[in-house]
């Protein structure tokens, strides 16, 4: 039989994240959502407590956690604010290509100083001409002696305006499509790296998102991850590792929506009794609770599979896709439970719907997740 209990160590990690989420993040969530402020002081504190570079091994100064442990932390953070959580965990995504594709020398040289202090990194894959069609990216990397010269533009890049390091996917041979894609590590300080202005977003407003232009940026060949043409599988393997915590992030938003809805339903009185005693609301809450638990268990299962050596493509796609759809549905039902108050910005649930929406889109749109799920699934029957 599977064992769903957490170890004492996992409980203490979750307690740390919960405490940080409640005392440091939650009090500023509404304000940052309203103003779009990037609360760097909170991210610095998260770094100080070891909540930032969760997937980086301790030998390079990270927290060295497995995916289950990461998910426990991410869910707690997202319960307080999905947008802040996106910014806190963006380093995990940006640094994963170095962990998976870097040599021992590169990991030491690039990760150790980065993780020793508060720094943000950004994962630069998506381009204005298409996010899901990553194989068709157009950012060029031309070899020039012992350097490459990068030209092109990336968009929807989390933390880009504040990052000091970028992992960039560019093509050395546009005609070869995904077989030409190559990964590079580019410091913000390199000449020709131009982050754009912070985008105005529907949700995740405490996070920061912008374009990044690479204008003739010279990158030493020693900062290439893997060989020419190995970038696409590296990006895919990266997303296999980082997709599951997005399921946890969505689960955290969904749990918050359920918590708000249930608490409100017990207080709000109509027709002489709390609305929690009306069957219509009970059915809503029951459905929401099912969705939250299913999202969490699928996420834990995917995380557990990866921690036990599985590639995790199928499991993580199922978890991310299901949990993000669940988050949107649960947030929607939470608003409905609040009625007119739920539609008001003064109450916390409409933010959850806006934050949940992004989890269906980023780190692989759910349409792509379903394509992946079907492909992996059909292989089992072929």
């Amino acid at each position, binding site marked *: 039989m599977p064992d769903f209990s957490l170890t004492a160590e996992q409980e*203490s990690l979750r307690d740390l994240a919960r405490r940080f989420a409640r005392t440091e993040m939650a009090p500023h969530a509404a304000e940052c959502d309203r103003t779009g402020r990037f609360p760097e002081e909170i991210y610095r504190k998260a770094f100080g407590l070891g909540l930032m570079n969760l997937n980086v091994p301790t030998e390079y100064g990270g927290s060295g956690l497995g995916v289950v442990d990461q998910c426990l932390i991410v869910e707690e953070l997202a319960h307080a604010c999905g947008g802040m959580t996106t910014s806190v965990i963006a380093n995990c995504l940006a640094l994963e290509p170095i962990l998976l594709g870097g040599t021992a020398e590169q990991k030491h040289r690039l990760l150790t100083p980065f993780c020793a202090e508060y720094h943000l990194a950004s994962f630069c894959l998506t381009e204005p001409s298409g996010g899901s069609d990553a194989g068709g990216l157009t950012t060029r990397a031309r070899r020039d002696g012992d350097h490459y010269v990068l030209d092109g533009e990336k968009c929807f890049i989390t933390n880009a305006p504040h990052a000091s390091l970028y992992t960039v996917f560019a093509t050395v041979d546009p005609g070869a499509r995904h077989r030409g894609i190559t990964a590079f590590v580019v410091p913000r300080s390199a000449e020709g790296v131009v982050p754009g202005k912070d985008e105005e977003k529907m949700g995740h407003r405490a996070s920061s998102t912008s374009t990044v232009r690479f204008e003739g940026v010279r990158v030493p060949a020693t900062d290439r991850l893997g060989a020419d043409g190995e970038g696409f599988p590296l990006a895919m393997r990266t997303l296999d590792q980082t997709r599951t915590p997005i399921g946890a992030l969505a689960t955290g938003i969904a749990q918050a929506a359920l918590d708000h809805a249930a608490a409100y339903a017990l*207080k709000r009185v109509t027709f002489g009794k709390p609305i929690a005693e009306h069957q219509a609301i009970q059915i809503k809450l029951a459905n929401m609770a099912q969705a939250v638990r299913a999202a969490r268990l699928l996420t834990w299962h995917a995380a557990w599979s990866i921690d036990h050596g599985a590639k995790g493509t199928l499991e993580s796609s199922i978890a991310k896709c299901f949990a993000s759809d669940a988050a949107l549905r649960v947030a929607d039902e939470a608003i409905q439970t609040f009625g007119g108050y739920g539609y008001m910005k003064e109450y916390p649930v409409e933010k959850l719907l806006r934050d949940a929406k992004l989890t269906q889109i980023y780190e692989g749109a759910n349409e792509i997740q379903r394509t992946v799920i079907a492909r992996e699934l059909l292989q089992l029957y072929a």
Partner: protein
Amino acid sequence: MEIVVCVKPVPDAETRLRAASDGRTLDSEGVKFVLAGYDESAVEQALLLKEAVPGSKVHVVAYGPAPRTEEVLRSAIALGADLATWVDAGAERWADPIRAARALAAAIATVPHDLVLCGKHSGDDEAGLVAAALGELLSVPDFSCAVDLRWDAAQGHFQFRRPVERGTETWTAPLPCVVGLQQAWNDPRTAKLPAILKSRKATIARTAASSPAPSPSVTPERFELPPPRTGAKLIEYRTPEEAAQKLVHLLREEAKVFP
């Protein structure tokens, strides 16, 4: 300086409490026990002193049953304590404060202690007796309700303050002594993730509580929760003016606190 801090596992403030089947004690099933409040401030005080006085060591000591007692000791280690001793209470579900103090004093007597700190009372029973009892049992002076304890190396004594009605007392105390600390005056630090992971692997010395204590000096008779509160009314409003009007109406017509 050898600093001993006594800590106690207490139910997390968010726990839903229930009486055990004996009707006299807390049902600890499913209760999350934490290092809380006063004890966090005591550990923080010890760590501040350790940082101020080079070569100091912080030794946390707790008396209680498994696994909660070990867990709060690990929490203190994650915060920065160097050593931990668990005085195992075995199957004992509740210890009166004097019994707990005896068990703690027996353990403390066997280790170096220039200063013994504890919360001025525990976060659950709030008896406030352990600090005073430890002073007696260890035959050293004891003080309570202290904040901001410092070591004055030139004078060779501790200095601390006690907030009192409309003022603050400043005291000095010799070494060794026992001091009970106020809560939340020193903004206790949060343990960092690497320290939490490391604390899981730390060695905790375990000692059995020495000879069974004489019959308890006090025994709990009944454990009851306060009756559920009723009659609360949620005022719904669109403007502060409307809220005030409705509130005044209720105070006048229903609560009849205004004529």
